[in-house]
């Protein structure tokens, strides 16, 4: 049980933030994150995890996410984005800028988004991401680059105000 606690302490925030970026909903991310660590605890009763615990935890997280996507479809993401949009416009000091980043992430292909967020939010290396997503390292490299260029393009076109263009860009 200490191993599970240690993994939870080390990775739960990264897993939560990864799931929140993927789903667009903090409430959804909490439910999924809880599911992830329930599975982690159960798995640790049967087996040991020594090699790359980060990759293992995020593999569980991604499987939970894929199950959720399969069950709910993209409808959940769209509804969550609408809810986040309402909340962001009420609460955020820079609603337009922050909203653009979330919206831009939604324009990515699901696998590109997963790979990119595993890198930027999860902090995984290319080898670990390749193991989690069942890709080659070259595929991971090209998808991350493609995601960065797509986000850069989406964010630079987010505003027509030249003086704010630099602020709106990533």
């Amino acid at each position, binding site marked *: *049980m200490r191993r599970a606690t240690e993994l939870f302490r080390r990775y739960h925030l990264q897993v939560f933030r990864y799931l929140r970026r993927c789903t667009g909903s*903090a409430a959804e991310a*909490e439910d999924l994150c809880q599911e992830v660590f*329930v599975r982690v605890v159960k798995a640790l009763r049967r087996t040991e995890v020594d090699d790359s615990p980060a990759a293992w935890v995020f593999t569980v997280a991604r499987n939970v996410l894929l199950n959720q996507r399969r069950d709910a479809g993209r409808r959940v993401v769209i509804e969550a984005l609408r809810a986040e949009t309402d909340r962001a416009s009420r609460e955020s000091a820079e609603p337009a800028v922050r909203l653009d980043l979330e919206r831009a992430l939604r324009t990515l292909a699901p696998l590109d988004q997963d790979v990119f967020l595993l890198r930027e*939010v999860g902090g995984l290396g290319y080898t670990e991401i390749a193991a989690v997503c069942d890709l080659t390292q070259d595929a991971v*490299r090209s998808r*991350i*680059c493609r995601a960065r260029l797509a986000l850069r393009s989406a964010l630079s076109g987010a505003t027509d105000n030249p003086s704010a263009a630099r602020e709106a860009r*990533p």
Partner: protein
Amino acid sequence: MSHDPMEILSSFMDGEEVEPAALAEALTVSGARETLLDFALLRARLRDDPARPGFEFYRAMEPLLADRPDRSWWRKLVPVPAPALAVLVLAGMGLGIWGGLELRRVERTRVESPPVPDRVLHFEPGVDWQSQTDKPS
């Protein structure tokens, strides 16, 4: 290894191995500096994320992660390798045989030595008993 300048800059951003010559060439491409800066700014924006799960999440996780007594103690015996188990069994047998031999030795020793007296009677000569030579004629 990719030769695409953007991929090289992206990989370099991630601390992945890149050939120095390829990196030098990628940096000479028009807009490379701005691209690298934009990648860095994007990363900073994404990582500047104060979002945390709520209190209910942690309360729900607490019983799941709490230490519980291990009910499956017998499972710990399973991975003990066979040779180690054989050594343990033989050691146990040896202990039993030695114990039996030791018990028999103790019993033999006890039979051969005289029993300890329950009570001792003291007789003083001339008081409790008299010799023939002491009797009055």
